[in-house]
């Protein structure tokens, strides 16, 4: 068991490993998580990234005591993993949440509040506040059997916040949401951060992580392949410039300037990839040949670029999503 200290980070995971038994044959196991070690500082938004099947949900289930580790341990908010005291200050949104069909959102939030020992008045007020926050107040008294996936996801987020948690675990929080819903969740995550909560979320939607996370860990096949601040993982320097030009045909590009690396057509326009240092020469050359520079866009490495470079194509059984 790890030592518990007052100055503990929100989450301190040491060497967590987990494997699942395959079929009914004893001894045959498939590793799902291998020696995961992470520290998440208080107040951070931490992204646990990886393709489907990389070990993200397994990590969350281990931390919540839903499954048990083969080895390793974790301290959550200064308490041992699975302790009631830790769960008192936690929020959890499972992936593809299922709630009771026969309850209304207001009743479910009341039930969740009872499990936290909130008074009836506090439960009523908190339910009203959360239903408003996630935008399902009009359906507050409708049984959930009539809910869409997106509405269940919104309620899932609301129930994760009933106790004003210090640490929130969100498993694929954008799943099933329309663009407005995704924006709303992003705003809620940023609001939680502003209020001092720590958010640990798993996702395979990279732009979400890029927008929200202070730090990330990238998992693949149950192992961490990269972790740290985004500026440590990504090359934030400009890698090249994208120059949009009109009035040039593809043959005009050859010999345009030594710096032009490649191009692609966009209708009657061309996109030129130009090293930053060669930009001036390329602009002059384009104009000399009767073309016109429409825009110049600096390009930095994105998380998606990082993944493609770091891991190549998804392994069998894995799926990356650049957006959705």
């Amino acid at each position: 068991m790890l030592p518990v200290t007052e100055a503990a980070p929100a989450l301190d995971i040491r060497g967590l490993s987990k494997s699942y038994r395959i079929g009914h044959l004893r001894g045959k196991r498939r590793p799902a998580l291998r020696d995961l070690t992470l520290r998440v500082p208080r107040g951070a938004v931490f992204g646990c990234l990886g393709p489907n099947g990389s070990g993200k949900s397994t990590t969350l289930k281990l931390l919540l005591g839903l499954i048990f580790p083969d080895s390793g341990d974790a301290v959550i908010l200064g308490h041992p993993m699975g302790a009631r005291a830790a769960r008192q200050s936690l929020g959890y949104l499972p992936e593809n949440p299922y709630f009771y069909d026969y309850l209304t959102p207001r009743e479910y939030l009341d039930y969740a509040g009872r499990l936290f020992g909130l008074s009836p008045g506090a439960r009523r007020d908190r339910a009203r506040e959360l239903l408003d926050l996630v935008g399902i107040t009009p359906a507050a008294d409708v049984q959930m059997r009539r809910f869409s996936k997106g509405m269940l996801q919104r309620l899932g987020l609301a129930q994760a916040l009933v106790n004003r948690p210090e640490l929130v675990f969100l498993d694929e929080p954008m799943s099933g949401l329309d663009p407005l819903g995704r924006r709303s969740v992003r705003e809620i995550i940023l609001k939680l951060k502003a209020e001092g909560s720590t958010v640990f979320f798993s996702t395979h939607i990279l732009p979400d992580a890029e927008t929200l996370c202070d730090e990330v860990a990238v998992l693949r096949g149950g192992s961490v392949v990269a972790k740290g601040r985004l500026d440590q993982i990504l090359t934030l320097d400009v890698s090249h410039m994208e120059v949009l030009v009109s009035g040039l045909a593809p043959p005009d590009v050859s010999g345009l300037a030594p710096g032009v690396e490649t191009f692609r057509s966009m209708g009657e326009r061309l996109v030129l990839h130009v090293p930053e240092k060669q930009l001036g020469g390329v602009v002059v050359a384009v104009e000399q040949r009767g073309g016109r520079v429409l825009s110049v866009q600096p390009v930095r490495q994105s998380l998606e670029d990082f993944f493609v470079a770091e891991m190549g194509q998804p392994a069998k059984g894995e799926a990356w999503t650049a957006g959705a």
Partner: protein
Amino acid sequence: MRRVAAVAHNTFRESVRERVLYNLLFFAVIMTVSGLLLGELSIRQDAKIIKDLGLAAMDLFGTLIALFVGVGLVSKEIERRSLHPLLAKPVSRDEFLVGKFAGLGFTLLVNVGLMTAGLYATLLALRRGADPALLKAVFAIYLALLVTVALALLLSIVTSTAVASVSTLCLVIAGRYSDVILNLGDVVPGMPAWALRAFMILIPNFRNFDLKDRVVYGDPVSFGDLGWITAYAAAYTGTVITLAVIAFRRRELT
């Protein structure tokens, strides 16, 4: 205790909203029809038949609910993963399981209570008098239902829902014919005595809870008898629920 009560309250609410108590309609129909049809018989006969029918229906409907709702009580939550967000809250697995048991126990109490009221209403409507001894048989039926729920709960945690349903049903049937087990030694000569004793201990003796005939035919049922079957039910249910708690603590919720 607050958390156990919250889980129990929600379980009762589920039973009501998922129309588990609709079986009361069938019971009402049975009581009404039997009351109308038996009006022609002699006073003593029709009262006995109505009591018999009422208690048997109470036993049958209660057992069906205890068995099939009991099997799904926790296993359905595991399959649908609806308990994941709950167990991430400060409710322990023990509290959750005990709360589910208490919730269904309360549902059955309401069910048996309303059926008892229906049975007495039928007897009073036919001017056959409200025999208070019936309550002793009803109490015993309720204890048997609690034992059934505990068995269904345990088996649903250690096996699949389908296997749990079948095996609980087998245990309920075996427990109602436990005298046959006693005579197995005669039927199967090579059967060792210790195996018979083990069977008798493991399989719940539901015959202990069958006071229907004694009550209907006016045989006395002492409070000592009731105390004994209460102690048996408490010991058996307590043991089975403890085993269920241990199994549930070790269960991985993937």
